[in-house]
């Protein structure tokens, strides 16, 4: 499953997502530069880094909502475009409106067919697909419940089902663990891992705290200080790599259970 990262030049690298020397940002403002990485089928990768480092910017590039300033980013060897059906997306979201009395099944159903114009008299196929997606995240019993009655963990399951319903190859999950307590976060990570392995999809997950997800990760994309470090967790989460990334002395300490603590930076993920 894990690939040995060999520096390759040229554009015909195999893999689902390929990025080479990408510079991202807005006109007149570079958010980060020199990101090169590739993701293969069935890999679970984390995008981590301090607040405002540009983690969501990476997602916007992959979703085709924003173009790189320079460099190349490809999904299945094609330039990302909006409405790519092979991507399932869970945006960063904190609340759902307390008045939104709409059942979960309907939301997942809309993620299946909500981009189609006109009217379908029978919604049988779509509702079936929605129910299957809910089953895949272990939330079938939530189908008839209204969205405003769900807990944070249940909502994240629904959002995951929403992303899965179109049977994507890539999942982009933006901070799915924020607002969840440690146990719920663990459950959700295990669920994401299960989905990634059983459906053989590639998942990118933005996270603030790396420890709950560390055991499941194949790759890490660490964005900080306008730069990007990528590789396996073992390669990236070292004192040398992070010192180079932050331009200041950083030390990575591991405890007996494999948890990491990164010492030497102020805005360290985990404390907000």
């Amino acid at each position, binding site marked *: 499953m894990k690939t040995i990262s060999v520096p390759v030049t040229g554009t015909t690298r195999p893999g689902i997502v390929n990025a080479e020397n990408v510079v991202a940002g807005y006109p007149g403002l570079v958010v980060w530069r020199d990101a090169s990485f590739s993701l293969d089928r069935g890999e679970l990768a984390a995008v981590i880094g301090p607040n405002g480092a540009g983690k969501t910017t990476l997602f916007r590039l992959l*979703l085709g*909502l924003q173009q790189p300033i320079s460099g190349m980013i490809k999904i299945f060897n094609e330039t990302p475009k*909006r*409405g*790519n059906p092979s*991507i399932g*997306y*869970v*945006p960063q*979201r904190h609340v759902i*409106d*307390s*008045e*939104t*009395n*709409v*059942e979960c099944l*309907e*939301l997942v159903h*809309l*993620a299946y*067919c*909500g*981009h*189609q*114009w*006109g*009217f*379908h008299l029978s919604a049988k196929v779509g509702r079936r697909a929605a129910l299957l997606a809910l089953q895949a995240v272990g939330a079938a019993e939530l189908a*008839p419940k*209204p969205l*405003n*009655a769900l807990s944070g963990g249940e909502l994240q399951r629904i959002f995951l089902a*929403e*992303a899965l319903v179109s049977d994507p190859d890539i999942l982009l999950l933006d901070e799915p663990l924020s607002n969840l307590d440690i146990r719920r976060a663990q459950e959700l990570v295990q669920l994401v891992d299960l989905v990634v392995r059983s459906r053989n999809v590639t998942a990118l997950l933005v996270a603030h705290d790396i420890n709950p997800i560390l055991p499941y990760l194949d790759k890490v994309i660490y964005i900080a200080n306008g730069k990007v470090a990528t590789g396996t967790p073992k390669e990236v989460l070292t004192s040398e790599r992070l010192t180079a990334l932050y331009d200041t002395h950083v030390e990575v300490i591991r405890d007996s259970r494999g948890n990491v603590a990164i010492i030497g930076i102020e805005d360290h993920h985990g404390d907000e």
Partner: protein
Amino acid sequence: MSITADLLIDLEQMFQYQFMQHAFEAGTLVAIVAGIVGYFVVLRRSSFAAHALSHIGFAGAAGAVLFGVSPVIGLLAFTSVGGIGMTVLGPRASHRDVQIGIVLAFMLGLGVLFISLYTGYATEAYSILFGEILGISTTDVLVTAVAAIVILCAVAFVYRPLLFASLDEDVAEAKGLHMHMLGIVFMLLVALATSIAVQVVGVLLIFSLMVTPAAIAQRLAKRPWRAVVLSVTISLVATWLGLSVAFYEPYPVSFFITTIVFVLYLLVRFLQPKINPLKGGQAASEGVQGKQVTQPSVT
């Protein structure tokens, strides 16, 4: 005219007058349209936009009267331009309040100018503000019918994308839907619906058909399609009942319509948690009581 015990005789009595026929025809069309568009207004939390558009419509109607054209033309023109203006200035539906207020203030300013320029205006202004359903002409009914058909076709076409965008803007955008375009379509739908609903309840009371029935329906039904049907049913019943009562009582139709939907809303708001204990839990969590309970458990 006095009411009898026989419903058929009452109805016959009422419908022998052409103004009552017209009132029922236009009222029915408006109720259907307002019930449907209203559901999206409530779902998108855009009731301020609907409120603003109806007031902008007043300025438009005043301008139309000043220039000697039908008020409906002025209503349509101003609400459409206002709706597009709001969407262009504030692209994200969730943070549009300020832009709506800015456009509203400017266009109401125009309305003040139009009124000051026109002298013999008072009665016309009154009917635009509070509705004049008993004075609807055959042409008005036809215009209303055409507008209603346009709105129904447009809603049927954009139904799913608009619903998706209203529930989950970010994912809908990532799926390739253009939020800006859908926002403009939605505002135009509200503009058109407002323009024809003004005849029935007037600018000031537009909420009674556009927001209250949909708000009731949203509490009762969690499938959008059912909520839309319910919302239409409520506004239809309120309009019909209001018209019938106003036929026998010397008070304004719009007063009865607004009162009926308000009482219905209160009933649903306070009785529903008691009838349906499962849903009562959620309803309570929206209220003050619920907040007091949940907040300490978080800290």
